[in-house]
């Protein structure tokens, strides 16, 4: 299972998230010859983020496929390959470029199993580097997760750290349902110690309490996890005890973990990069309110991107939720 170059046989290694996903892909490809990697520039280049680095060299062009520049084509042929028994892992180069292939995801990938009364399976994983914070130009910093979570038939994940990423990508690939796999691109270069021998600590569709606290629950995923952990750290200095939950799985949501926390804290703040309106925060807030109505001391607050396109990179930092905006919401929740 473990990636062979760097991880050796089980020795813990310090890796970036990009490398961890690379190792996860490698492990999945070694474990199952039906696993394919496909997308634009995933071959020799190893992807623009180098997540597929070296895979074509080792697994060949038949398993690591540089595709024509056409997202609908990538996803549509991946569905065909899946129908033939393969397990394609498609890379979408940047979040903003998934939309030319949206139809194949929404109307085909998500519905094929249902349409066939369960006879057909299309275990396709769609990897999408997402979110802002890398100073990129337009379309390179989108957070479209709610556009997928709304769609029945898809499972949606977002990793936030190298260790999770390594395991989650493998778990996603072995899932028989289609999975949209969001990778927070500005965290690609964050490092952690990965012990592949330790095995996955967390089941796939489980949220994880990364920091316990009593006053307010912070709910986050992907790039915002680090932000929230930092906020909790700062808050601790001001004698505020924040619980930080990394949702990890956006569809399905791990609601019991969320409810349990909020019932205790009585206050929740959801933090995400994508625009406020009909974002994931809305769903989470609505669910919490329905389920924990009498436990709530304040409405669930949302710290999100604005209801605007991602702005040019020079003012992107103003768009992206940061530590201060999270703390501001925490203050508001506590003062309600």
């Amino acid at each position: 299972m473990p990636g062979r170059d760097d991880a050796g046989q089980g020795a813990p290694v310090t890796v970036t998230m990009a490398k961890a996903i690379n190792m996860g892909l490698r492990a999945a490809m070694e474990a199952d010859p039906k696993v394919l990697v496909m997308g634009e520039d995933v071959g020799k280049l190893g992807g623009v983020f180098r997540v597929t680095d070296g895979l074509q060299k080792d697994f060949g062009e038949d398993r690591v496929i540089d595709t024509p520049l056409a997202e609908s084509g990538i996803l549509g042929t991946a569905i065909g390959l899946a129908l033939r028994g393969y397990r394609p892992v498609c890379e979408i180069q940047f979040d903003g470029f998934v939309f030319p292939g949206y139809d194949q995801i929404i109307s085909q990938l998500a519905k094929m199993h249902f349409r066939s009364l369960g006879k057909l399976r299309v275990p396709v994983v769609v990897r999408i580097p997402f979110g802002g914070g890398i100073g990129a130009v337009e379309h390179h910093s989108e957070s479209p997760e709610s556009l997928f979570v709304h769609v029945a038939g898809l499972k949606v994940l977002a990793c936030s750290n190298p260790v999770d990423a390594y395991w989650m990508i493998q778990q996603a690939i072995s899932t028989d349902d289609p999975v949209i796999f969001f990778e927070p691109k500005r965290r690609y270069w964050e490092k952690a110690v990965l012990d592949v021998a330790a095995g996955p600590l967390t089941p796939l569709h489980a949220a994880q309490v990364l920091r316990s606290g009593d006053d307010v629950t912070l709910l986050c995923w992907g790039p915002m996890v680090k932000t929230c952990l930092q906020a909790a750290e700062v808050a601790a200095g001001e004698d505020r005890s924040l619980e930080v939950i990394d949702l990890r799985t956006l569809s399905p949501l791990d609601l019991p973990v969320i409810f349990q926390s909020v019932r205790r804290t009585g206050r929740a703040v959801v933090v995400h990069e994508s625009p406020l309106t009909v974002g994931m925060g809305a769903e989470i807030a609505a669910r919490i309110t329905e389920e924990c109505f009498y436990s709530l001391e304040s409405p669930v607050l949302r710290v999100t991107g604005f209801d605007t396109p991602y702005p040019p990179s020079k003012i992107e930092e103003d768009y992206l939720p940061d530590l201060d905006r999270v703390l501001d919401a925490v203050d508001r929740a506590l003062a309600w």
Partner: protein
Amino acid sequence: MSVTASFGGREGRPPLVQLLTPEGERVEHPDFAFDLDDEAIKGFYRDLVLTRRVDFEATALQRQGELGIWASLLGQEAAQIGSGRALSAQDYAFPTYREHGVAWCRGVDPLQLIGLFRGVDQGGWDPRESNFHLYTIVIGAQTLHATGYAMGIQRDGLVGTGDPRRDAATIVYFGDGATSQGDVNESFVFASVYNAPVVFFCQNNQWAISEPIERQSRIPLYQRALGFGFPGVRVDGNDVLACYAVTKAALQRAREGSGPMLVEAFTYRMGAHTTSDDPTRYRLSEELEHWKLKDPIERVKAYLSRNGIVDAGFYAGVEAEADELAARLRAGCLSMPDPDPLSIFDHVYVETTPQLRQQREDFAGYLASFEGAH
């Protein structure tokens, strides 16, 4: 056989591969030969008649309110039976919503098609058994699935082995209107670049609902393939022998590893687009009269009769079989149970989610609350 881009001659009238004239005369073509005997043609005749009867019966059922809608294949039987019969067992076919004739060739019970249009399911047959995919309604989307599936066949090492029982290909059906969709053109790119064993079978029935073919292309559609670097050929879509021969050649070529080919079956949608459509709003009845003279079934009948291959008893036998089939379909349709409301929650996922399980339970409880009220 030599199938080359030269079929795509761009000057003058587009060449049309024909092996059986509307009058029922066999003709030769330099590149495509019909390699079966008269027994096979009798079989085709039976296929054509039974398929048309399925269509008639389903249309009648729709008129009587038993189906939500029906998409008739009237006029396109030869294109579908000819191509469908050219498939090997191991080939895989991707249809649109109109490929009832191909379904027939693949052994899918027409009752399954009726079930879909009745609204009891979205495709009840097992594509893995019949190697006939579910109907795809979003125009063109299936061309990419077929291409991907063909790429899978390549990866399975089942192209160009030389073993005719192993080498496989896919065939994908789509209409003239579909050729305008991005997906179809992307599938041409992928198939061409990877040299995938896929036959693109376009039934140009000259209409996309109310839009004539001129709204999709100003040149014959088979020439589209030239722009992507693989051959295209136009075949008389009302000639079951030609459709068989050309499709077989194209499949053979694909299985051998020579890559994709576009077959444009030039035919005519003799009926409405679907039972919801009213073609009198947009086309002249003369056009239909003209095409009636080219009826795909009549010409086979003329061939069989003219050459004394069958007698009246044969026709009567097929007719009786058709009556029986129609009766079975009608009875089957009328006795088809509605799905269980709770099946809404089935098969959304291979592994369902806690939320969905909850929704199912809640809804079950809600439904049960009414039972008490009775």
